[in-house]
């Protein structure tokens, strides 16, 4: 009998294209819109940035290295020392090294590097298409080598100009240059103290250090987030949809016909529960499958996924019976309209379907987890990040309790005789 009733509900729903569109089409549309529109914010905000950087070298680096070696040879240092320092100095080319870094594979999409002759400095400075300019003064490499190997003079200074209005690019260049300077400072310190930097690198491999983000799990991209958000929100609409069909059965005396056919009201009640539950389950699977095919939203643990979907569908079934029972009791569809128009929106907002509201406040997160959709969403997000289903028992217990509470209140509210009683 219950099967017949579910079959009949399925037929009624399938023949109502508008409701089907709202239940299945709307979440898909919203996933596409929200996932795309809020993708940058959700996914860490990848910025499409590429800028031009000019490098001006006022004196050729090779000449300065040769000049330094000549200085070494003309000095009073022992022959072996001169030979060793000369061979090392020949490999130290700070300008070439920095230029290589700026043109490396990692930075090639970010920086367009152009080497500019010193007499073009004024022209380049006035050209707004350059985000930044690095100028190496005359004798930069010579002074640096003298400082590094002979501890003579002061460290040379390079100049970084950046264009007003291109602060991000300027900051990036400054950070790269600073990192480069620190590297050289460390190298200089190690060199002066007779430590081979290469040896230090080898030693450091003995100390393994794992670097990870604060949240050590898989990141959730915007499409996955909104797939979950829209599924849990739109599944809630299944409850008023089925409850509305049930209320029409009361209004049209169809429920009375069933009672007169000696169908127990509890058989009817259970059929409403199972219909809400089953249809919410199917609806969720359809949208998730669509998201899998189109947006590549995948689940690391399918069993966990099905368990959460089942529990959430149970909660929707409970809500369906509750709405049906109240509407039967008060002889009005107002509670159903109120639920679909107001309560679902509040639940969806608190549950984080529109944006991760809970990230800003632990209280809101807790409040969100006290909605069936919010709890389900937290559980889904947790497993999509790679956590285990056992880490979500609190959410599942809450969803289960919510469903049971809704069913019990529904049982107590449901009329005990004909619909008119």
């Amino acid at each position: 009998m219950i099967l017949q009733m579910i079959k009949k509900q399925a037929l009624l729903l399938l023949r109502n294209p508008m409701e089907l569109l709202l239940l299945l089409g709307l979440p898909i549309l919203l996933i596409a819109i929200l996932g795309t529109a809020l993708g940058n914010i959700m996914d860490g905000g990848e910025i499409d940035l590429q800028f031009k950087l000019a490098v001006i070298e006022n004196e050729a680096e090779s000449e300065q290295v040769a000049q330094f070696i000549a200085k070494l040879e003309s000095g009073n240092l022992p022959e072996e020392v001169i030979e060793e320092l000369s061979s090392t100095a020949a490999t130290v080319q700070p300008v070439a090294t920095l230029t290589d870094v700026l043109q490396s594979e990692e930075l090639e999409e970010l920086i367009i590097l152009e080497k500019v002759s010193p007499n073009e400095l004024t022209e380049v400075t006035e050209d707004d298409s350059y985000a930044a300019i690095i100028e190496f003064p005359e004798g930069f490499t010579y002074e640096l080598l003298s400082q590094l190997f002979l501890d003579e003079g002061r460290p040379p200074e390079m100049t970084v100009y950046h264009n007003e209005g291109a602060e991000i690019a300027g900051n990036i260049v400054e950070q790269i240059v600073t990192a480069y300077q620190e590297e050289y400072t460390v190298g200089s310190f190690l060199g002066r103290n007779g430590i081979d930097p290469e040896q230090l690198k080898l030693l450091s491999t003995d100390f393994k250090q794992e670097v990870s983000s604060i949240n050590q799990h898989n990141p959730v991209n915007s499409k996955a987030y909104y797939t979950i958000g829209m599924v849990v929100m739109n599944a809630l609409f299944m409850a008023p949809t089925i409850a509305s069909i049930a209320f029409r059965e009361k209004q049209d005396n169809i429920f009375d016909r069933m009672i007169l056919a000696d169908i127990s009201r509890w058989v009817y009640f259970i059929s409403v529960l199972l219909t809400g539950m089953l249809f919410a389950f199917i609806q969720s699977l359809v949208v998730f499958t669509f998201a899998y095919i189109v947006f590549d939203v995948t689940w690391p643990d399918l069993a966990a996924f099905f368990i959460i979907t089942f529990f959430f569908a149970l909660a929707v079934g409970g809500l369906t019976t509750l709405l049906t029972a109240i509407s039967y009791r008060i002889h009005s569809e107002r509670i159903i309209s109120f639920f679909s128009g107001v309560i679902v929106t509040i639940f969806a907002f608190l549950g984080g379907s529109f944006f991760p509201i809970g990230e800003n406040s632990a209280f809101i997160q807790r409040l969100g987890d006290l909605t069936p959709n919010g709890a389900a969403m937290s559980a889904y997000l947790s497993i999509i990040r790679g956590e285990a289903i056992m880490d979500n028992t609190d959410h599942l217990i809450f969803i289960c309790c919510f469903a049971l509470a809704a069913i019990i209140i529904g049982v107590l509210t449901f009329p005990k005789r004909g619909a008119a009683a």
Partner: protein
Amino acid sequence: MLELIDVSKKFKQNAAVKSMNMFIEKGEIVGLLGPNGAGKSTAISILSSLVEPTSGDVKYQQKSIIKNPVALRKIIGIVPQEIALYEDLTAEENMKFFGRIYRLKGEKLNMKVQEVLEQIGLSDRRKDMVKTFSGGMKRRLNIGVAMLHDPEILVMDEPTVGIDPQSRHYILQTVKRLNQERQMTVLYTSHYMEEVEFLCDRIYIMDKGSLIASGTKDEIKRILASENTISVKADYWNDAFIEKLKANPVIHQMNVEEKEITFVVSREVNIFTKLAKLAEETNVSLNAVDVKNVTLEDVFLHLTGRALRD
């Protein structure tokens, strides 16, 4: 067979049914006549076990059905006033669904659906959705659904409301045929007195929650046995004629229409000479004066002072 014993029903402070006594014997068609809001539907709901009475008892085969309605529900078919069907299902799907809830299945269900669809003249529309049906077709299907489990008692709550004369005729003929061919017991409620007159052996008249008359058609009409209903026709009336007629103490229940005035007078009064004299005095040219047969409408008007369809 089935009886209401001193049944009352209150919804909060409103008494929908007051101390109602009624019985239905096997094989008869009983009419429940009354205006809208008289309490007919509530009485039917109590009788069919859908609503529990505030006081009194309902008995089927001498046994109370208030606490244990199963026996009655097996043999009763209800045709509600509203169209209790799924508009988005076809006629056949509706029949099969309701047949299943009456525990019919398999070939027996298919045969019964086919049989009833033929009885109500909808075989050729079996695959069409109910929402595409006319009002009359929906009413016929509404009746058909109540007949699927071969009920002994068919309770019909205003089954002809809002349909065309052809469909109404079809329904009335179907009810008559079911009663004659299958000895089906029928409780028929309506505020169309001509339907009740056509179908019913016995009649209960309800008003404001109470039964105000009951008996066979003749017994009820005999309530007006000492009076005649007079119909006077003319092309036009003037105020003087109407005022003087109203002022006449022997005339009561006067109803004035554009070209016809009806009223009730005692059989002992010779009204014809008085009418002729009044017409001459007020310059009204009478076309006809008839003594009408007493109708249930007249009886209702006599008992309540209101017309059935007011």
